[in-house]
């Protein structure tokens, strides 16, 4: 494969000890997903293609974690809701753990839905309580709360976690995003490098 030497050049220091192997795994699964996507539908628009790429990338990464982290499970859960995406997920998540994982994920989705309902009711109750906004401490707390809320919306599956888990998940998610960006960038610059090599 052309891509493997390119990947080996990138030695980013991430939290994962085996970042390069992680990237390789991600790449493999990603390509699998892409092939699966393109084989089915030859004429996709840019947006569709972009979505397919992104989706397969997400799923590939999530599968790389094998459901160890909550956000990966959430990603898979989100994907499994639609039938065609679910097929893709199943395709990517090949392996012995896949069925177990998918079952877990489906259970999780039910849980998540119920949690959402609970959260909505809680929020409505909370707003009715008047809050003192004079103390500096309370202001700082509210700032932090606001930002935590934003972060929860960013990290997939982060809405139902407490602060500690949220920060852990964020850590993992950031590592994953970085790896993904690196791999994609490699691929983006790969043709350029090849052309340069050929021209030399």
């Amino acid at each position: 494969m052309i891509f493997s030497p390119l990947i080996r050049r990138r030695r980013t220091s991430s939290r994962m000890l085996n970042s390069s192997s992680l990237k390789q795994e991600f790449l493999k699964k990603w390509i699998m997903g892409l092939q699966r996507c393109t084989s089915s539908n030859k004429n996709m628009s840019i947006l569709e293609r972009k979505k397919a790429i992104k989706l397969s990338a997400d799923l590939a990464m999530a599968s790389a974690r094998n459901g160890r982290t909550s956000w990966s499970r959430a990603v898979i859960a989100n994907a499994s809701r639609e039938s065609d995406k679910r097929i893709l997920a199943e395709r990517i998540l090949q392996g012995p753990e896949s069925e177990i994982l998918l079952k877990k994920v489906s259970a999780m989705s039910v849980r998540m839905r119920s949690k959402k309902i609970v959260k909505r009711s809680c929020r409505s109750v909370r707003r009715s309580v008047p809050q003192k906004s004079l103390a500096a401490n309370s202001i700082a707390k509210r700032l932090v709360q606001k930002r935590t809320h934003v972060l929860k919306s960013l990290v997939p599956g982060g809405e139902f976690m407490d602060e500690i888990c949220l920060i852990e998940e964020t850590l993992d998610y950031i590592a994953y995003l970085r790896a993904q960006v690196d791999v994609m960038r490699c691929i983006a610059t790969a043709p350029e490098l090849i052309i340069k090599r050929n021209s030399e």
Partner: protein
Amino acid sequence: MQPCSREMQGMNSLLNPPQVSLQDLHNHHHHQQQQQQQPPQQIQNSQIHHHFDPTSHDDFLEQMFSTMPPPSWDLNPTKSPSWDLKPRDLSDETAPSNPDNNVAFHFDDSATLASKLRNHQISGPPKSSPSPSATAAAAAAMMLQHQLLMSRGVAGAGDSGMIPMPLSLGGSDDVVDGSSPFKTPNPGGEGSVQALYNGFAGSLGQTTNQAQHFHHPQGGPVQGQNYGAPGGAVMSQGPASGSAGSVPGQPRQRVRARRGQATDPHSIAERLRRERIAERMKALQELVPNANKTDKASMLDEIIDYVKFLQLQVKVLSMSRLGGAAAVAPLVADMSPEGGGDCIQAGAMGRTSNGNLTASSNDSLTVTEHQVAKLMEEDMGSAMQYLQGKGLCLMPISLATAISTATCHSRNPMLNAANGGNNNNNNPLVQSNGEGPSSPSMSVLTVQSATMGNGGGEASVKDATSVSKP
């Protein structure tokens, strides 16, 4: 300790004027060799403290035993003699009231410190008349301890200065007169201080005077600092260990006893939780660039920005794979030679650091993306115009990656440099929309050109017209 050091400095400045007279006194008194008369300005506070001690000790020892010859002042720079002589001035002549008060102030603290030192450090020898050997051993042990403490970089300059100065005052007074201001305010303290010095005297008495003086520059300052350091250390240890009861009237207890706080289970749990969060924030700090903030809210801000930035990058990079810019190729060839066809659509969003813009900016970005994608399929020129209308523009991937990595380290310089450039179509740059202080406000969308698709062969999906690379 702070006020003491400040006052020391004040006294330092006060010393400068009467330097000449003091030097005369020097010469008059028992200074055998007064070699380098270093100007007082050269000597800093720490040195004062250093050289303060040997003279004070010497004076005291003289006073105590009246057997040792007067110490040679050559080893001690003029500062310390001037320190010593100052109290003499005070006692002999009318001195300004300030130093008097300062002296008294230092003096009280030192007395208390000395008493504490005595209580904590010297356990064996009785206070009244310590045997030389026992005190020597104790003093030696103390000195070793003190050296260890000193080597830890204790900022004991202030402390050491504090303690020896009043002691020397007392000593010098003893030398000059029978009465000493040292004695009157705290007679008990003086006795303890004398006991301490007896210990030192015992250790010192083992060597010859000359040897003593030779040792002084190293041993003296060491002793002085050690003297100060254990004082400081004892002071900090005392309150910290919660044995505050043994030291009455300690004015500097800053460390709260930890025992009393932890009884409430709620607070324990909360503290655990807070500690856990702090741990993980620290781990996050390594991952996220520009993460030197200590505030939780700003750290969260950085994290949010970084996650958004990465997500956007992924989105853009995934778009670049599409090869939908096949129509871009002819236009791309005219563009800058750098990318050779790789164009990057850079949307620099001057995002402020509040999260209120999240939803709106995300939506607008996706809308923009869709629009641009549509336009690109038809005509690259119109796509470019559309982008420029939005305040975005195209740039080569290499430049964009360089900029994005640079922004990770420093916020604005690259962007400003790029802004300083032109907005030509031929040299695409990044435009920043009100680049604010927030962190990665660069979002990079990559669009892979058809030429690359041709060359690579793997990622290209559509056929592309061949473009000659300039």
